């Protein structure tokens, strides 16, 4: 594995990729809480985002604002080429592992 992705980091990276050009701290948090039903603190999401940025998997830039933010601008995150590669690699690794599981394990006849 070239890209040392943690489980949480992978989720965050997936969401960033999914919300093309619109991913920021709060939106990612919302998806994790609503779609995955997984309680998470804002700061841990941010930390993951910064860490991903440090690894060069995502890039950030200043974006627009909404009313509820009191005029404060968002930091919008976008997936980089390296990020895409890392996601693909992670998925391939998993499917390879899935394919190794014998059929009877999940009880399929």
């Amino acid at each position: 594995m070239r890209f040392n992705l943690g489980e949480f980091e992978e989720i965050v990276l997936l969401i960033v990729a999914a919300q093309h050009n619109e991913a920021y701290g709060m939106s990612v948090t919302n998806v994790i809480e609503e779609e995955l039903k997984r309680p998470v603190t804002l700061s841990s999401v941010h930390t993951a985002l910064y860490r991903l940025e440090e690894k060069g998997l995502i890039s950030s830039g200043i974006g627009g604002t909404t009313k509820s933010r009191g005029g404060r601008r968002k930091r919008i995150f976008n997936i980089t080429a390296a990020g895409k590669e890392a996601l693909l690699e992670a998925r391939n690794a998993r499917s390879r592992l899935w394919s190794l599981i014998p059929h009877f394990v999940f009880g399929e006849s």
Partner: protein
Amino acid sequence: MKETPDIKPPKWADRFFEWYCRNELTESIQGDLHERYEAYLSSLSKRKADSLYWRDVLLFMNRHTLRRTYTRQLKTNWITMFNNYTLVAFRNILRNKAFTGINVLGLSVSMSICLVIITMINDQTSYDDFHKNGDQIYRVTHRRSTGVDLAIATVPAPLGKKIREEFPGVEDVVRFRRGVSGEILDNGKAIAINGLFTDTEFFDLFQFELRSGDRSTALDDPFSIILKRDIAEKFFKTQDPMGQTLLIEGLGQFKVTGVLEEFPGKSHLEFQALASFSTVPLLENQGKLSDLSNSWDKASASWLYFKAEQKESLRDLQVYLDELTDEFYNEESEFTATFFLQKMTDITPGPLMGNQIGQSMPNFFVYGLIVLAFLIMICATLNYANLSTARAITRLKEVGIRKVMGSTRPQLIFQFVLEAVLISLIALAVAILLLNVMLIPAFEQLSISSILGWELVPDLNIYLQFVLFSMLTGIFTGFFPSLYMASVQAIQALKGARIPKMSRVGLKKSLILVQLVISVILIISSSLVHRQIKYMITRDYGFEKDNILNIDLQGQDFQLLKTELEQVSFVDKVSGANNIPSIGRHDDIKVRRFVSDEQLEFNYFSVDENYVDNLDLQLLAGSNFNPSISGSHRQLMINEQALKTLGFEDPSEAVGVNLILEDSTSSKIIGVVKDYNFMMLYMDIKPLILQHHPEEFEWAQVKLASNPSINQITQLEHIWSKLDPNHDLEFEFFDEQIEDFYSTFYDIVYIVGLVSILSMVIAGMGLLAIATYTVRIRLKEVGIRKVLGARPGDIVILLGKGFFVLILVGTLIGSSLSFLGNKAWLDLFAYRIDFGLDIMGIAFLFVLTVTVLTIGIQALKAVETNPSEILRNE
């Protein structure tokens, strides 16, 4: 999502976040936080949402978000900059001599007091620090069921033996027993000695060394004694004291088995000599010491020390001691003692206790001193800060230029703190001078300092503490002004900046008001104390005290001495008494008129027939003692108070009446004297009985024709030595004796006076700071007024008006507070001065003078400034 534009997240959480978060991340994260907060609000109460918001803010603190420190900056120019700061600081110190002078004065006065306190605390904590394993040494103390509720350092005598024999958990149990006291005849002179009986283990427990003698056996045999070095030299001069014998009157012959080395430091153990504990049972058998070997109900003559290496053994010992309490005392017993353990290092300074083995300073005194030092320094610091900010304007241009050239905030803060530290070090030098030239000599003169054995000698270690203290003071004082200086924006600073807003003037004024109130209280209190003492000492005592010499009889026969003395030409009259009046000593006697009456408690003096004449007492009725008739000791004289208490209307009624004294003998009243102050001056005159009991006399009161010359004293000494070659003549002048007795009061006046001057200096500094500040702010106004034709007087009044109100309010509050406070102690005195308006007036005038001096000078300066200079740039 509900629209909640009005509800904002907690302001302080936001501020906190903005404080710690890196600037480039703040905006985006805070936006997210606010969105999240709204999400909370849609489902939760505001309180819940707020606390969740706080949690989020706190959780955000991590290495990504925290502000970067300045580590990435160039480090190479620090030394150059440091040199530059020092140079600029010195230039500034020299340029503003007045400002520096005031700052140094204010700081050094407060600092010198703190230095005294530091020295004193060092002195106090140096007790018993030389013992090896000193922190394993403990003693047993007790509290008793009766009497005052105070821990007492002594224990019942049998306890020591009991623990030594029955409790194995602790080591080196050392008993002390008082009683090595008496006189030793030496070359025909009697010298008093005071020491303790103790066990051989003394030398194992404590780190006292023997100069000569064997420490393991010196205290084994009965009637062995070890002397302190100075005592040994007193008795044996150059001879070797070892093996010599000392005859202690009333105890017996002791053999000297050792001489102690100088103590390595101060100790709470005070003694001149140590005698072997094995002597005690022998003396008890002979009846020379009261037999306490089985008295569990007397606990005032023995101390008990031991060493405990393990903490557990202390717990076991406590359990054992509690069992002893249950064993030896029950509910019916009149005296019950509960035992406690006390660590030796907690003895002095330590809690207030009865029956201490030596002098010891109570710890609340030490804490009080520390608090006092803190208060003084906080006041001085705040004033320094005020003064610096008031003067900041002149430095703002420099700050502006430094900022433009790339100075960072921490650098500027460092620069100004460095300046403050330099000033504080200069102040320290002045303070050390003050300390050594004025304060230490003054403190050493105080009578309490000799009573408590203060040794205020600063050594190197203490000087290091001084330097540390003054540097800390400097950092503390410099920090707040420097924050302000560093926060000014470069452009504003260069433009010839606005002075900071007036909003803090209110705070400064109230600070100064508090200082004024404190100064007024102190000024009023010290002048009151002073007056009260003067009043007491110069008061009419009701008896004559001039030209009277009080001679301590020291066991000498009074009649013999009297006969001798009366032949001397300059001696007027000699009278005898058991106590000297008005210096706090007296005896009590129980009296009743009829057997069926309740007993009344009267004070009692034993005097002779010359007493009334000698002290110039007025005889109201009846006659003086007549020693020639038989049964003269059955004669009584009483004072007016006694007359009243016994229920007589007129002095003549009482004459001839018989009283029954407490020994059930009946005595006849032969005379009534006018009340005179035989008690301490602050007490009321109590009923008094004078009785003729020459065998109780301890003093001869010799009335002289005039103030005696040295020759005459020598003559008296000659007469004395003929009668008693063993003792030196010990005498005191009556009036001096009385003044000495009240010297502690003078100490109080001295200390309070010193502190009030100090507080006035500090308050004056505060006033000066705020005056400088206000005048600077209103400089333009003054200029315009002058242009429009205001006279100098008007302007001074304009500027001074506010301060006049300030000191008026300060004096009023201070006076009323000090009225309440001083009334409390003045009421203890039977004869007291009035709290008059004049004292308030003095305090007010004093404060006014200081104010006029500080503010007037500033105001005049403002008046003298040429308006064109101020207004030129408008």
